[in-house]
């Protein structure tokens, strides 16, 4: 039985698309570590980078960890991901969204004493959008309000 030309084209194209998507998924899977923008603290602790290599460290700023040192411009804080914590020092102006309990990406080098020396900070905000009127609530309360109003 002869197959209609357009059915043949449909089958060929669907096979080509499946192969194409498979290739793209394989490539993305192979890139899963290299294409990450930063390392999380547990990766840094498990596999410390060489002392002079520039790396990025990303995670949450631990609550109550931000301290300004005596010179007034150097700050020290702790970045954690729930599994590991890395102390960080940074000298300079911090982005306005840099707050405790929020995300941060620090660019810099790992010091010999296990402290990360950052020369740039980027604030990373999360996917939650909460109106200002709710800012006095705790994160948990705000999340509930968001859940109710959605």
């Amino acid at each position, binding site marked *: 039985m002869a197959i209609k030309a357009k059915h043949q084209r449909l089958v060929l*194209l669907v096979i080509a698309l499946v192969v194409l998507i498979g290739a793209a998924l394989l490539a*993305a899977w192979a890139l899963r570590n290299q294409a*990450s923008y930063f390392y999380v603290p547990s990766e840094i602790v498990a596999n410390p980078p060489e002392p002079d290599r520039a790396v990025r460290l*990303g995670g949450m700023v631990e609550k109550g960890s931000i301290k300004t040192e005596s010179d007034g411009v150097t700050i020290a804080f702790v970045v954690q991901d729930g599994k590991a914590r890395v102390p960080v020092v940074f000298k300079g102006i911090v982005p306005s969204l840099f707050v405790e309990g929020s995300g941060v990406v620090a660019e810099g080098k790992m010091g010999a004493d296990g402290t990360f020396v950052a020369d740039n900070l980027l604030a990373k*905000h999360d*996917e939650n959008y909460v109106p200002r009127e709710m800012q006095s609530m705790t994160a948990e309360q705000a999340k509930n309000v968001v859940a109710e109003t959605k």
Partner: protein
Amino acid sequence: MHGFANPARFLRIARWLMPLCMVTGIAVATGALGWGLFEAPAERLQGETVRIVYLHVPSAWLGMAGWMGIAAASFAELVWRHPLAGIAARACAVPGALFTAVCLMTGSLWGRPAWGTWWVWDGRLTSMLVLLFLYFGWMALSQASEASDVGHNKAPAIFGLVGAVNIPIIHYSVTWWNSLHQPPSITMGNSAMSGDFLVPLLLAMLGFTLIFAGVVLARMRAILADQQAEARLRRKALSEAEF
């Protein structure tokens, strides 16, 4: 779909559908932007800068939707040789590229106050920039194959389908890889965005999508009119050559 194989039938529908999409789209988008820029609340951490979301997210969506349109049209062109498919793909390219550019620009303007940088090479930003370059490449290729006069040219359609692999990469870039860009706030059924932001944002997306549809219909009509005029000129030249 093959009811539209006859361009005359498509043109009859496009004639009233195009202005309808445009007018309602402009009304909805203007209302949503007004709501978002003046009525919606400021965000807890980001303050007033959050308002750029009402332009940024619809642009990102339409930049990606434009390429999904090209890919769907390319599929229809390759399998069914639908006469309007190539025209639809060409009509999607320019507005898609424009919205991608708007998305990148508003994202950059937003990144400076929110993250502390205009640009980073993380997965989401890089894959979105790649999408813009794919649009440029696709437009150049389709223009070249249009000018080459070798009859049915499959190259733009194949490029349109291959380029579509970038769309899931853009979408999942923030899930697969650590990135500075945050994960999606609008997800099926469970959004991490308060309704105060979500409702005007969804309205803006609807409005801009209608405008996009209107522009695509208008461009399809223009391309068809162009082809008709060209065919008429060619016939005229042929009949004059006979004398």
